């Protein structure tokens, strides 16, 4: 007992000390800039001088000057330029998330003109697949998902509209500052522009703990927390969340700053819009039921389906869902069936009952196709009455402190932030403040992200943390130069892609001699192109692209590929399986449920979609090997690939393996590889005809599976 008492007293003492400290800090008005005078990331980037170098011939762009300067200082040499084959494979995977076709490779390799690579880059940037690939990158940052997570994991039937907005914004090279402004405050800045409204979907697709609704104010608080944390991480590269519970130990963000940021969102809430853009109800439901989601799914399929039998079956299922949703319709059906039963009872034709019911269901389904989407657009808009934002001690709702005004963290400088904002102008003020050349972080953050997504690692290797705990840049001048250049070129992401891809830095080979490896093991000095494993989605897409099964249909509601019982382990709720015609769409469109990671891809380091993810893990686990060897879709894709090879190359094993290599790796097969693979296919000598075709086909399928399972296939290098 004395022990317990002592402990308790100590606890009380500690709490008191903590409390007085916290009070003191709040009293100082949250000006925490004293912690970090001169932190590099908190001052506005200025265009640095382009440095001189000894060997200017290596440099194609100013980017290379900054890189070579460091290398020369360290007495290191850059790697030679990559081969043309490596370049086009790298560029195509990099910009579109798909491998180049053998024709793409040949065209480029045989194109002698000096602007050949430039034209490849332009073609790829103009292809709609560019937006899909880079949209996926952005969705990591935006912690995008199609459901709310937790126990109820409610469906977000509206989420895809934000996803499609992102893809479209990238494809149309929407200036990044505008992209930011639309996401944070599209409704305030451009109320008449439907696309700008969709952009606020960033804030309507976060995790939702539905049960939080039981505690008054908790749901709203969760929403504000998500909004501030996501905004901070995605646009400013700051982990603001720490400051929710206490003054940030390392960064100049006080608790007051944090809740002042929440206050910027406190006048807003999620609302549903009808097709005319009018607000539907006062307060949107948190998400959709599975039935609603499946109906929307069937509806969008039925509209696109051309095969009459398939269409009818979709309509029948749609009718069933309609009945399940609507009690009145269920009663109608009962009466309808009773009538038929009455009429047909004498004729003793049990089939008619089924036929009649069938027709009725199809008709109901047909009716569901009319009118606009069943799931309205969800946007961020203003409440009638703004919530009051108070500092919450320890970040706990039941410990409210002072009311705080809307403001941005003082220590981040940037443009002066207006005071006494009207509740309906708060987010636009924030958006302008972030998307400003005077904001020290914004341009640097995105430039670093783009660099990282191109080269595998950023100039700052903590892409979501540019604060004091983050790493300093390996090439600070290069980062600043690109940030300024980017802003002066209209915040154009495509400009940035061109700038990077045209550089010798990006075009270096993925090779290094042992001495260079020892002196620059982590490639911090950029002595070479660092090979990196493809992301889960790119693996999925690449397999289908080379097998010729990829369905390139863009946009719309997310689809749910069929899963078997084993794959469903861990999923408490039903999986709304889509029609088979959708199974081979790009992985970008696979339904993302927060409580259940899509099993085929789950071992390949998917982001958790709970908080903004700036950099995915790259792990190596045996489960990846099992998924790549044994998952039935791998076998299907291998069979399709084998079929394609035979169709295109004829039954000539040498031509078949040659083509297989060109599809899989973009390059030609080597002599050794040809010998080994022909042997694998049952040809000890250089044979040119096939005696037993099905044996050959089986062996070829195995060969295709072996290629899928090689490192060269799943690495960009």
């Amino acid at each position, binding site marked *: 007992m004395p022990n317990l008492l002592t402990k308790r007293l100590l606890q009380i003492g500690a709490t008191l000390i903590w409390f007085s400290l916290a009070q003191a800090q709040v009293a100082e008005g949250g000006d925490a800039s004293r912690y970090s005078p001169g932190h590099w990331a908190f001052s506005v980037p200025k265009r640095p001088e382009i440095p001189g170098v000894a060997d200017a011939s290596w440099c194609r762009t100013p980017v290379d000057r900054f890189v070579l300067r460091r290398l020369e200082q360290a007495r290191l040499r850059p790697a030679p330029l990559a081969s043309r084959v490596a370049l086009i494979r790298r560029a195509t995977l990099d910009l579109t998330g798909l491998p180049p076709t053998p024709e793409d490779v040949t065209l480029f390799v045989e194109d002698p003109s000096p602007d050949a690579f430039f034209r490849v880059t332009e073609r790829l940037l103009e292809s709609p697949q560019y937006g899909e690939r880079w949209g996926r990158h952005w969705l990591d940052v935006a912690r995008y998902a199609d459901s709310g*997570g*937790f*126990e109820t994991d409610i469906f977000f039937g509206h989420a895809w509209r934000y996803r499609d907005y992102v893809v479209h914004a990238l494809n149309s090279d929407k200036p990044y500052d505008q992209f930011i402004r639309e996401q944070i405050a599209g409704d305030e800045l451009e109320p008449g522009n439907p696309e700008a409204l969709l952009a606020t979907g960033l804030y309507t697709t976060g*995790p939702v703990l539905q*049960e939080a609704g*039981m505690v008054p104010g908790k749901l709203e608080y969760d929403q504000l927390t998500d909004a501030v944390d996501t905004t901070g991480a995605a646009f400013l590269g700051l*982990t603001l*969340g*720490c400051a929710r519970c206490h003054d940030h130990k390392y960064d100049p963000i006080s608790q007051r700053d944090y809740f002042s940021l929440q206050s910027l969102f406190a006048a807003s809430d999620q609302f549903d819009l009808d097709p005319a853009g009018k607000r539907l109800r006062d307060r949107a439901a948190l998400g959709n039921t599975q039935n609603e989601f499946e109906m929307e799914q069937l509806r969008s399929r039925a509209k696109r389906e051309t095969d009459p039998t398939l269409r009818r079956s979709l309509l029948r299922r749609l009718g069933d869902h309609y009945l399940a949703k609507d009690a009145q319709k269920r009663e109608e059906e009962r009466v309808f069936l009773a009538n038929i039963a009455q009429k047909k009872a004498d004729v003793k034709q049990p089939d008619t009952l089924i036929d009649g019911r069938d027709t009725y269901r199809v008709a109901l389904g047909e009716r569901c196709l009319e009118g606009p989407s069943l799931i309205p657009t969800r946007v961020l808009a203003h409440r009638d009455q703004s919530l009051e934002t108070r500092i919450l001690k320890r970040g706990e709702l039941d410990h409210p402190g002072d009311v705080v005004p809307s403001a941005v963290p003082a220590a981040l400088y940037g443009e002066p932030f207006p005071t006494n904002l009207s509740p309906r102008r708060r987010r636009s003020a924030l958006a302008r403040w972030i998307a400003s050349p005077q904001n020290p972080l914004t341009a640097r953050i995105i430039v670093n992200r783009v660099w990282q997504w191109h080269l595998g690692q950023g100039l700052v290797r903590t892409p979501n*943390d540019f604060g004091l*705990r983050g790493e300093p840049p390996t090439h600070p001048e290069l980062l600043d130069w690109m940030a300024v250049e980017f802003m002066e070129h209209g915040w154009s992401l495509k400009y940035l892609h061109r700038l990077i891809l045209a550089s010798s830095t990006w075009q270096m080979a*993925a*090779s*290094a*001699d042992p001495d260079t*490896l*020892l002196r620059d*093991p*982590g*490639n*911090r000095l950029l002595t070479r192109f660092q*090979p990196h494993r493809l992301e889960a989605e790119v693996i999925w897409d690449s397999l289908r692209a080379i097998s010729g099964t990829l369905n390139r249909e863009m946009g719309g509601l997310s689809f749910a590929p069929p899963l078997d*019982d*084993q794959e469903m*382990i*861990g*999923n*408490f709720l039903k999986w709304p399986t889509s029609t088979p015609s959708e199974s081979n769409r790009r992985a970008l469109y696979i339904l993302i449920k927060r*409580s259940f*990671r899509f*099993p085929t891809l789950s*071992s390949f380091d998917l982001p*958790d979609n*709970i*908080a903004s993810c700036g950099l995915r*893990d*790259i*792990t*190596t686990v*045996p*489960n990846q*090997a*099992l*998924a790549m*060897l*044994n*998952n039935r879709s791998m*076998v299907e894709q291998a069979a399709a690939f084998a079929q394609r090879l035979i169709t295109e190359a004829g039954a000539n094993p040498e031509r078949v393996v040659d083509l297989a290599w060109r599809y899989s790796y973009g390059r030609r097969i080597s002599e050794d*590889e040809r010998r*080994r*693979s022909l042997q*694998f296919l049952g040809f000890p000598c250089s044979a040119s005809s096939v005696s037993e075709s099905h044996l050959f086909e089986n062996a070829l399928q*195995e060969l295709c*599976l072996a*290629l899928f*399972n*090689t*490192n*060269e296939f799943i*690495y960009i290098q």
Partner: protein
Amino acid sequence: MSSSISNSSKLATRRHWITRVAGGLGAWGLLDLLERDGRADLLPAALSGTGNPFAAKPPHFRARAKSVIFLMMAGGPSQMETFDPKPLLNRLAGQPMPPSFGKILAQFTDVTKEPLLGCKLTFRPSGQSGLPISEAFPHLQTQADRLAVIRSCHHDAFNHSPAQYVLTTGQSRLGYPSVGAWITYGLGSASDNLPAMVVLAEPDGKLKGGTPCWGNGFLPAIYQGAPVQAQGTPILYLNRPPGVSAQSQRKVLDLSQWLNHLHREQSAPVAYELDSRIASYELAFRMQSAAPEAVDIQRESAATRHLYGLEDAVTRDFGTRCLIARRLVERGVRFVQVISGSGDSKDWDHHDDAYAGTLRQARKVDQPIAALLHDLEARGLLEQTLIVWSGEFGRTPSSQGGQGRDHNPNGFSMWMAGGGIQGGQAIGATDELGLRAVEDKVHMNDAHATILSLLGLDHRKLTYLHQGREQRLTDVGGDNDLARRLLRI
């Protein structure tokens, strides 16, 4: 990993870490570490890493247990019907709760308005120690001297999923690593051909909290639990597709590995990462034969099968999973999570009838768990295997709809056994009605700190840098580490 691994200098730690673990981690991360430490000269050591991402690592201090079997009772068993007898509750049954007990937040009911529900189950002082255990667990009563019951567990998540996250990750929000992931991260695995962490969920695989309950959270994906099925394929994608033999798969693998070796020669900058991938394919191939063997209970004697209740339809399922759990820890698996129920009223969520529900559900797990304790002891494994039994919360003393009880995270019971623990003791207490933990309160952070301690890990030192913070399983809690008091002296 900032944990100061027992002996000597940071350098030795790094070297160890590099040679043993590097294979599985993002290799750039490794290189960064080397470079930041100015230890680029260690690179050859990194390159010669074994490639097994689960290689065993030493603990911070002397470990009492080497592995854990975590028996998770999803849905929230009632403490009043199981391990925490409340005589006053029966005396006041039918009356409203005395106002002095105050209010709690429960899921559906207002505890101040509902009448108190007496416990119809009888408790018996069991074993030499006389530890009271409810008659719902007749077999566990025979094991009383092995159990240390903690009656004062508490947290504040009152719904299933968040509470299941608290139970397994210490936090009610998504995105945090499970306790098994932390332990695997801290200690690695002692098996060369099985996953380090295995989950044995209900046959339908359903659990309200879902995969995050055994997830890696922000830790690298290699630390996530591998769900293993007692029936059918034990691991996702472990079975070769129909018509594919081991030989033909080996042939495919030989070709791809041959190509991988060629490719590796030309990819010096990531050679170690590629080595690791090559090794992971070999581990996967070995797992395909090792995992089915590990779960093949046909290899057990009739007596053992009888012990676990495999002949009885009610106990067969959980008995099978307990038996597999034993086989897995025998084979070096570090953490086995066996889950009873999903968190539904048909299993441990007794909103409708606490008496009948407890009896029904306890019947499924009682004999298998007693058998597991007995069997581990008989094989000399109990001393090095920590068994933890807990639901995600307890239940209210007041009734719901007459016979049921509502959720109550303010006070519930957990027990631990094995791993050097002194059985036959109860730690902490709830108030006289079982509403709240009042004495020697044990938050899940404390329970997690205790589990880590018993495995030789210091919960303050087992950290991982994420979102600018050195994150811990126990967050800022875990001060009430019970390990010293639990251990047999």
